[in-house]
């Protein structure tokens, strides 16, 4: 049935949105800023994967295994980018006027976008992953294999993050800083380093997701802002502190978009998403799950 197909499509892509949103929420909660350049990390991850694959195979095509091998590269690279951005630029505006922090990340976003256009042109690129048979047929529903892989990938990344936060020392440090930076400093945690690590991890996850997006959609230098905004919608819905909330939010958003695309037209999906954003902000500015945060 068509609607079920749309919902399934939505869930598949929604997990990707959720993974991006989780990183966004992490920065928000720990570094206490809204990172308007978050979407650019997705974009950069996609391009990293694209160019790495091209360097190996000569064009942006390859086997699944080869593609998956580019993911760690994207992750590591984006971690470095995120860490560096935080340490050099963002750090300087923490604690100042909210507007200034927004503007800095916005400036970084624009700068990265434009550098991207200069370097790679505005033409969309995509990665072709070779499958013998691109789709599975499950209970009458078409499930593209790559989307399924992306779905699993997003879940894995999110799960890894969750485990990391719960089980490792750095993860605990991150949680401590998000709750009370001063107290964290008092117990010997290097707050600046921890914030930068958080920024790095969030960017890394976003980058990983970006790689998957390059395979199931495409990448172009200006794609980032939309992912930033979707992350915002999801986090507002799910609450800043809540990973489950973000997951639910992402899946929901994906489903709503796919349903809109299928039932109305794909041209209206973004309009629907943004209307949702505004409705959400008006109705529930502090999110439905998770902690209440001061805007």
């Amino acid at each position, binding site marked *: 049935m068509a609607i079920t197909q749309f919902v399934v499509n939505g869930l598949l892509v929604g997990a990707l949105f959720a993974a991006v949103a989780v990183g966004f929420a992490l920065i928000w909660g720990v570094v206490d800023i*809204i990172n308007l350049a978050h979407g650019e990390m997705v974009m950069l991850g996609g391009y990293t994967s694209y160019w790495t694959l091209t360097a190996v195979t000569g064009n942006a095509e390859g086997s699944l295994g080869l593609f998956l091998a580019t993911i760690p590269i994207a992750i590591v690279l984006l971690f470095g980018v995120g860490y560096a951005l935080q340490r050099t630029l963002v750090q300087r505006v923490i604690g100042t006027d909210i*507007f200034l922090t927004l*503007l800095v990340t*916005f*400036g*970084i976003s624009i700068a990265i976008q434009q550098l991207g256009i200069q370097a790679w042109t505005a033409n969309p690129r995509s990665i072709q992953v070779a499958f013998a048979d691109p789709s599975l047929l499950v209970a009458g529903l078409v499930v593209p294999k790559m989307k399924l892989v992306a779905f699993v990938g997003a879940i894995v990344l999110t799960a890894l993050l969750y485990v990391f936060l719960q089980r490792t020392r750095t993860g605990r440090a991150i949680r401590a800083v998000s709750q009370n930076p001063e107290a964290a400093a008092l117990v010997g945690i290097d707050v600046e380093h921890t914030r930068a690590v958080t920024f790095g991890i969030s960017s890394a996850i976003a980058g990983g997701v970006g790689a998957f997006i390059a395979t199931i959609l495409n990448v172009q230098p200006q794609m980032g802002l939309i992912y930033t905004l979707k992350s915002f919608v999801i986090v507002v819905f799910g609450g800043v502190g809540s990973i489950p909330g973000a997951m639910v939010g992402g899946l929901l958003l994906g489903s709503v978009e796919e349903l809109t695309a299928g039932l109305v037209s794909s*041209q*209206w999906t973004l309009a629907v998403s*943004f209307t949702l954003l505004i409705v959400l902000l008006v109705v529930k500015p502090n999110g439905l799950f998770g902690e209440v945060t001061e805007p």
Partner: protein
Amino acid sequence: MSTGSEEGGALRSILPPSRVDDLFGFCGDHAWALLGVGAVVGTLPPVFGLREGYYMTVLTEMYLFAILALSWDLVGGQTGYPSFGNMAFFGIGAYTTAILVKDVGIAFPVAMVGAGLVAVGFASVIGIAVLRLRGHYFAIATLGVLLAAQQVSRVLDITGGASGKILLDVPPGTAFYYLFFGLLIVEMGLVYYLSNTRFGFVLNAIRDDEEKATAMGFNTTYYKTAAWMLAALFTGAAGGGYSLFNTFIDPQTAYNGAWNVELIAMALIGGTGTVAGPVIGAFGLHTIIEIVETAFVGWQLVILGAAVIVTVVGFPKGVVGSLGEYAGEMEYYKRGGMAAGGGEAASDPEAEPEVEAGE
């Protein structure tokens, strides 16, 4: 935080704070006269032969950006609600004139007024939802509004979809020069006037402490909405002029994301919360961007991003703001400092309380 305190040596000897203070005082006392002089000076270039071409366009665009920056500042710098979506008003105004002139056949001046009004109408509706948000949420919501407006324009037929609209039969370049210049002068005068009335004071109060303003009896929603609609009026009208000036409008141009950042950057670099700041910022930054654009095509936005970052990190009060601080840094101490108000003055004879019969 005074920006000049440590590095001061050379700066202080050339331009001591008292001089700057005098300058500010002079400008404050003679503001209207200065505006008048500026108005006259601005009308001169076409009279002296600049009728068309590259420089005419640059100047015209400078005025346009000044209008956009000043309008943004009314809500962002004066009222404390930094919108990241003002270009939505611009685009709506642009499309309105485009449609009115091309499809409905209305005369351009009337169409421009229409553009301003439609933008105001849009602002009042959106404002109901958006102005009740604070800080981050407000900024992102406005960004969402901008993107939504852009998407809708891409989808509708009346706006020409993704290809936009082409306008022919437009007035000559000088007409736009005077149009934008005039609009700028009007707006500068209006904002300056308002900044000295209670309306302006309340806006600033909302910026500094909205809860306190409410506790003092001000219906802040009313004031915020008024400022928001005023900003929309000028931004929409400017957009309305722009679509004809450019002879072409499409979703990318109408809701130009880069301009969105630029106008904020201009207000910031020039100095938010002032009248001169956004205008100076617009003139300065636009000139720089034009220069960069001719020398290194395509890099202007990278430079813009860098300029934003440098300003935010280095001198967030902008040119006018930083100068103002620099000028006033000794004011507090000259006028009594900590001792005023009978603070430490245990030995101040005037501060002896006369103890009356307690009750």
